């Protein structure tokens, strides 16, 4: 083979560009950091000099400043008309009064509310969970973005570790077990002690789970890229020892949560705990069944595969998130959930129907027809819990819609709820026989899984994270980047899914007609795959903003301020003098 200059190969150029982007961004960050350090250093010097000057102030000079302060502070007493009786706001009705504001490029949203005291140790644990989750979101979607690009430029690279077939499961598993699962567990460490009204049984256990889950995703990703996997069943590509780490992590936290609930001081068990504890128990059942070898030969493997991949989605991610929603939504709206019993109904019906629907991934296959029928019936039955849940959430919103425009967290909740309704019902529709003819095996499935895992799960998790973290750290993210995160993620998701759904419908119809060759149906998809890459890029960008927002919410740095007003100067002097006395 002739050797060309490798830098003229499009694949190499694209790879280099992809590598260059984070490098450039990182360099810019380093420069900004260095500048800040220098600035801080200079300010410190200035402050020292200033302190010298303060110490040497003569009494006359102090008096002068005091005099000036008095003059500056002069104002009318404002009770010239009202008299001497001082108004008292004994019930704290007047709050959040802000008379001056900058130009309103962005609407001022309501600030996060101060909340009851959370132990600093628990705060730290939760932030570690959410931080790791954010990392896996970035990692997993970077891989996903790259895999999406490969549909447009298949020859981007020729390294076996970066080949499409190996990276695809790296993407799905990292966002499943790394991002969403860690975020859910971290949030559960906040919710369960709150609704049980007792401290968490063990914080140490929380760290053990965190380490095990992270280890599982790191090892799993490396193994997948090296070509070591479990045999190609979707979402159970990690080999059993890797998945075992994840499972043990969930077991020990489940025990921890269970103990916390057992010693609760409330009489009832709040419905959030039903969902969360059940999700964790069910995940363990699912994982054991999926990896236990006794029933996996021949068609048994496929039956278990259908069961596993759908229970993983519905009984772990969905159930868990619904539990979190039953805590956070009423709290954000500051009112009780519309109907507690609807939540309970949805819980039992979800278990009843969802468990049955796994085989709907293999309609018309060699799996027994009765099982396929059960799956279709179960999928239709899912209308009940989905409608019950959505009604419950929307009726809780009712009367509080005005809060939506004034909050930067509620839009995430609302989009999550809307996709919960549309995405889940789309799943029901996809299980029917005719829709299977058109859509099965096409990218429609990919679009659907993104509408649900992204539209429901990710949006809900972001809403919860933006709610919780400012309460824990007292720092709020910049509104403009939260807004940008929200819109980029939403528009990106729509750009991603709608063209894919449209294109794959055309493709399915072409297959059914049978008068065109298969390769023409591949060529047909090319423009829709491009749209997918564009939408994916927007989504990916939004995750960078999310990571930035998260960083702003948790960073520890304090600003150094040089006193300038007479009042501040006096205060600083008093403080400084006191220090000298105690020294």
């Amino acid at each position, binding site marked *: 083979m002739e050797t060309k200059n490798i830098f003229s190969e499009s694949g190499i150029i694209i790879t280099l560009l992809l590598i260059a982007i984070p490098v450039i961004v990182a360099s810019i960050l380093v420069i900004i950091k260095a500048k800040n350090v220098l600035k801080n250093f200079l300010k410190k010097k200035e402050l020292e000099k200033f302190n010298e000057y303060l110490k040497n102030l003569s009494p006359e000079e102090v008096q002068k400043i005091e005099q000036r302060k008095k003059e500056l502070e002069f104002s009318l007493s404002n009770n010239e008309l009202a008299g001497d009786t001082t108004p008292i706001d004994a019930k704290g009705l007047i709050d959040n009064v802000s008379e001056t504001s900058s130009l309103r490029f962005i609407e001022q949203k309501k600030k996060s509310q101060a909340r009851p005291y959370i132990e600093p140790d628990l705060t730290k644990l939760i932030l570690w969970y959410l931080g790791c989750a954010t990392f896996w979101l970035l990692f997993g979607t970077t891989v996903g973005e790259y895999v999406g690009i490969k549909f447009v430029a298949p020859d981007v690279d020729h390294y076996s570790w970066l080949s499409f077939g190996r990276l695809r499961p790296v993407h799905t598993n990292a966002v499943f077990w790394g991002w969403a699962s860690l975020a859910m567990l971290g949030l559960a460490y906040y919710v369960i002690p709150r609704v049980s009204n007792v401290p968490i049984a063990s914080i140490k256990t929380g760290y053990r789970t965190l380490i095990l889950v992270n280890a599982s995703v790191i090892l799993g990703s490396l193994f997948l890229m090296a070509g070591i996997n479990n045999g190609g069943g979707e979402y159970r590509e990690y080999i059993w020892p890797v998945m075992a780490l994840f499972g043990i992590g969930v077991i020990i936290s489940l025990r921890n949560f269970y103990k916390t609930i057992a010693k609760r001081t409330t009489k009832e068990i709040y419905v959030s705990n039903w969902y969360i504890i059940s999700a964790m128990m069910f995940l363990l059942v699912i994982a054991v069944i999926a990896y236990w070898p006794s029933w996996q030969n021949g068609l048994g493997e496929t039956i278990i595969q259908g069961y596993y991949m759908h229970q993983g989605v519905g009984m772990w991610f969905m159930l868990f998130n619904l539990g979190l929603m039953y805590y956070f939504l009423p709290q954000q709206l500051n009112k009780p959930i519309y109907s507690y019993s609807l939540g309970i109904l949805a819980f039992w019906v979800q278990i009843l129907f969802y468990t049955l629907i796994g085989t709907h991934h*293999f309609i018309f296959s060699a799996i027994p027809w009765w099982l396929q029928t059960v799956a279709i019936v179960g999928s239709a039955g899912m209308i009940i819990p989905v409608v019950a849940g959505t009604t419950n959430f929307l009726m809780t919103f009712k009367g509080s819609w005005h809060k939506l425009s004034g909050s930067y967290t509620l839009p995430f909740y609302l989009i999550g709820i809307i996709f919960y309704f549309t995405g889940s019902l789309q799943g029901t529709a996809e299980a029917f026989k005719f829709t299977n003819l058109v859509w099965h095996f096409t990218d429609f499935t990919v679009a659907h899984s993104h509408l649900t895992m992204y539209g429901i799960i990710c949006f809900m998790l972001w809403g919860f994270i933006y709610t919780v973290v400012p309460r824990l750290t007292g720092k709020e993210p910049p509104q403009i980047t939260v807004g940008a995160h929200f819109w980029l993620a939403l528009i990106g998701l729509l750009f991603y899914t709608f063209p894919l759904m449209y294109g794959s419908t055309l493709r399915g119809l072409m297959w059914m007609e049978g008068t065109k060759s298969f390769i023409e149906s591949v060529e047909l998809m090319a423009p829709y795959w491009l749209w997918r890459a564009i939408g994916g890029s927007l989504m990916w960008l939004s995750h960078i903003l999310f990571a930035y927002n998260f960083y702003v919410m948790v960073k520890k740095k304090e600003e150094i301020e040089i006193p300038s007003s007479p009042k501040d100067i006096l205060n600083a002097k008093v403080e400084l003098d006191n220090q000298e006395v105690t020294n």
Partner: protein
Amino acid sequence: MEFFDNHKKLFRTALVLFVGLTIIVAIMPAINNQENNAPLPGYEPLTQEAYLGKKSFIANGCVACHTQQVRNVDMDNVWGSRPGIPADYAGISRIDFWTNTATLMGTERTGPDLTNIGLRQPSLAWNLLHIYQPGRIVATQEALQLVAYLQSLKQTPLPDGKLPMEFLYKKKEIPVIVNGNNANLPDGKLLYTNNCMSCHQANGEGLKGAFPSLKGSPIVLGNDLELFVNIIMLGYDARPEYAVMNAVGLDNNLTPEEVTAIINHEKTSWGNNAKTVTPEEVKKIMDFIKLTSNK
């Protein structure tokens, strides 16, 4: 309610309900299918080479784009002659200590289904070219194993006398020929795309050093119809500078009308301009081939 306020009772009930349903819809059917199905009499287990190839297929995640299931709907007829049945998968068991059973039925058909690829595309040269792209052939041991696996993927015929399950959702019948009029022949271009194009290419010019050009080919343009039909049905290996051609016609059960349509398409495309043939002529030769070949 007391029941809802007792965490032991509540969570135990939820777990029992879930596990109970799971046993009914997952574990029992799985065990039942595992125990009560056996491979068909004609089933050939994977050779050692093909087995290693399957491992490579798994390691590289090929299942992300290629299914291995022919559903019992007519649109899947292109991927196999009969719908898949549990017995087709009965011979597949756990790979090794680390790796689960892999039926590789898949859920996405970004690329073609591979159930019957061993019959549909049996050529070694084509497979290697397809996997590594023209100009990138590196016939490593692993590549050969992978192709050995792909070539082993064939639908096992049902035992004598058994009729396969019918395909559901039949397409509207394509009109069948009545009097040998060309207008009633099947679509030659589509048949060419499905059966010939992967080697001879869309422009009919083949690939240098692998597949001969059909444009201006003496066999295509000439009058030796018997040789032409023979090559389509039984394959060809007369020219050492090109790869071996497999028995495309026989492997894919092409009918005389289909072969005629392909021949006429080749005789009149890419600048070729030769006299077309009728199904009757082709049928005569094919009947003779069937008599002489013992397949």
